[in-house]
């Protein structure tokens, strides 16, 4: 078997023992890698109902067959676990040197299970796994943690770490890698923290198994050059993703004031142009051809690397329009190891709840200094407020009550990324059907919706586009594991990816072969949720109710007087479910599951609910 190492490293943190397990072609061809591997392992090995922050949960680190191979933007790794934020399937990807090192160490995935009794970090070098006490770095932020480990092992190793957020089980804690790189929005860092695992250091020295190494090397290096050239010609990296802020502001989709508003006259103060002007450094992932991380000097003088989601959720959604202060909030999130999107949305919800009189407090929109203090409290779970904030928007709203659930901006417990969909039915559907919750990662349909459809349409074309993008973004790029940016931002044709895959594996697959795997993974992710919540119905796929509330309509601007309509949104969900072959509850039918070769999984899920 070429293209895969065929090895999974299983580490038991309770006993501090490990073993190397093997897998064969059937598993590799059915689940490919990354999200596919992680999902299948979690499905097979987790009992439903377990505490995501207990020893029974498992932390998966997984790469795909083209990960780490010299080719455009292949420096990513998937991290996954049962989410402590949502209770469902949780994963994320991040750029890291660990990608290449993991493969060179001889593994396609690591499974961490159990729970250490004391804080530790782990050093993996090929077949060697060592456990070290982490007292010197426990309690420290990710920047100090990385510096500490780099001093011991050198800067070339792969490091994945958590900050105070993960240590203190903040439910939206992430895993950090390089400067500003982080992954695992649904609290995967908290799972790592619950295992008292402060960091993972990986160094590999073996060759990555490639069927056609010389052909792949030539092709990959040439394509790295070509994509880099396109990036230069188009100027995409001048503002990277941060140009999106101005666009969202123009089309009334910007999150402002806990998403109660969709545009703001001061948005320009934190836009991509200002950010580019303030740039002091640029960062990217390994094998990157279009580095997207724009670093600026924050209010306290730290280097802070920003992208659009950061400035949208920690800036405009909090009514903070001072770029250096947004940089400070972003730096703190990175250092504490918190998801910037959930952190920003949670603070915005808190300010909103105070403004609505649902809870008493001193925090107001626009107060950057108080926001910084609250982030520290949330990361360390300090006091009643720190604990409340650390649990995320869904749990906060349930604790606060007084109708605040309606403006708690999450889907399935995961806070919504920086797109205000009070009148974007297609993008609202993308959030609603994202297998993680309110994440933009799987299907960013908003540009298609605005450009190529009628904005007020709830027609099947929007459902079809959401599914198409989920197959590509949430499927293909998450299981072969590569960054989607060359494709979507620079127009790098998708056909290149089966070409890389085939050179690496020696197979002869086409894009059509990948789509069935994408659909299989989406069906199993839904089964994972249903097994955890057997009373599943379509209301779990609804976006926040405030997007349907006419009193929340904009008073001026492009969408004045307009909000989503629930009956029409249900029709849109019907289109989506029908096109996917799912029933009216949003669960794959028996026929669909059989067609996707999920017979065993179907039998398992039928222990909890009857399939149609």
């Amino acid at each position, binding site marked *: 078997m070429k293209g895969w190492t065929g090895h999974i490293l299983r580490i038991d943190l309770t006993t501090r023992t490990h073993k190397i397990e093997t897998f064969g072609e059937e598993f590799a061809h059915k689940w490919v890698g990354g999200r596919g591997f992680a999902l299948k392992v979690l499905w097979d090995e987790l009992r439903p109902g377990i505490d995501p922050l207990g020893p029974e949960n498992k932390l998966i680190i997984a790469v795909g067959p083209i990960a780490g191979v010299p080719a455009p933007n292949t420096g990513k790794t998937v991290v996954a676990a049962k989410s402590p934020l949502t209770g469902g399937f949780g994963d994320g990807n991040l750029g890291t040197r660990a990608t290449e090192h993991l493969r060179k160490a001889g593994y396609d995935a690591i499974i961490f299970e159990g729970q250490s009794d004391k804080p530790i970090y782990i050093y993996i070098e090929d077949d060697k796994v060592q456990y070290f006490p982490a007292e010197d770095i426990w309690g420290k932020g990710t920047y100090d943690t990385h510096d500490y480990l780099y001093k011991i092992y050198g800067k070339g190793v792969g490091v994945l770490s958590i900050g105070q957020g993960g240590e203190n089980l903040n439910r939206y804690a992430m895993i950090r890698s390089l400067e500003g790189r982080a992954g695992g929005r649904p609290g995967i860092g908290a799972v790592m923290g619950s295992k008292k695992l402060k960091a993972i250091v990986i160094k590999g020295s073996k060759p990555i198994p490639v069927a056609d190494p010389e052909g792949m090397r030539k092709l990959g290096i040439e394509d790295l050059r070509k994509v880099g050239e396109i990036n230069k010609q188009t*100027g995409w990296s001048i503002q990277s993703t941060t140009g999106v802020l101005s*666009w969202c502001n*123009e089309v009334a989709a910007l999150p402002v004031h806990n998403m109660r508003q969709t545009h703001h006259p001061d948005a320009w103060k934190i836009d991509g142009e200002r950010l580019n002007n303030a740039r002091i450094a640029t960062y990217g992932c390994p094998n990157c051809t279009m580095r997207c991380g724009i670093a600026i000097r924050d209010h306290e003088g730290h280097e802070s690397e920003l992208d659009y989601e950061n400035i949208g959720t920690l800036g405009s959604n909090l009514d903070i329009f001072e770029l250096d202060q947004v940089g400070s909030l972003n730096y703190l999130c990175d250092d504490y190891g918190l998801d910037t999107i959930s952190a920003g949305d949670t603070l915005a919800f808190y300010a909103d709840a105070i403004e609505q009189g649902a809870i008493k407090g001193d925090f107001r929109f626009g107060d950057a200094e108080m926001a910084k203090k609250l982030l520290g409290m949330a990361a360390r779970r300090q006091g009643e407020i720190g604990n409340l904030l650390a649990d995320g928007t869904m749990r906060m709203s349930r604790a606060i009550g007084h109708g605040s659930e309606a403006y708690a901006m999450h889907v399935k417990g995961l806070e919504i990324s920086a797109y205000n969909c009070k009148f974007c039915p297609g993008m609202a559907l993308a959030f609603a059907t994202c297998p993680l919750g309110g994440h933009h990662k799987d299907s960013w349909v908003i540009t298609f919706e605005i450009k190529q459809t009628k904005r007020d349409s709830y027609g099947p074309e929007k459902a079809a586009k959401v599914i198409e993008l989920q197959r590509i973004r949430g499927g293909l790029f998450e299981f072969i594991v590569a960054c989607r940016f060359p494709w979507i931002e620079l127009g790098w044709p998708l056909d290149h990816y089966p070409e890389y895959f085939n050179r690496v594996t020696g197979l002869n697959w086409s894009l059509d072969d990948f789509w069935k795997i994408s659909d299989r993974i989406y069906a199993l992710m839904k089964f994972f949720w249903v097994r955890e919540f057997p009373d599943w119905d379509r209301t779990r796929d609804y976006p926040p109710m405030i997007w349907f509330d006419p009193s929340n309509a904009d008073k001026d601007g492009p969408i004045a007087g307009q909000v989503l309509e629930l009956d029409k949104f249900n029709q849109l969900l019907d289109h989506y479910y029908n096109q996917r072959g799912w029933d009216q509850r949003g669960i794959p039918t028996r026929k669909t599951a059989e067609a996707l070769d999920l017979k065993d999984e179907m039998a398992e899920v039928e222990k909890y609910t009857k399939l149609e």
Partner: protein
Amino acid sequence: MIKITVKLIGPLINLAGFSEKTLEFPAETTVEEVLAALPIDPQRPKIVTRNGQAVAPGEKLKDGDRLAISPIYSGG
């Protein structure tokens, strides 16, 4: 003559040399005529909105319209 505010987004700013500018055009100027007046490759994929709404290339503009021109993005 009509006044049109042109808002450019992302790297298009660097191509045109401005971020936002109010320009004068003859009455009944169309969207594609405004685009043609800018130093932006016509083949480049982009999203154009008029007063925040999608607009067809042949649509005639009115005095005071705001035209936002953006490259295609996929999110941060």
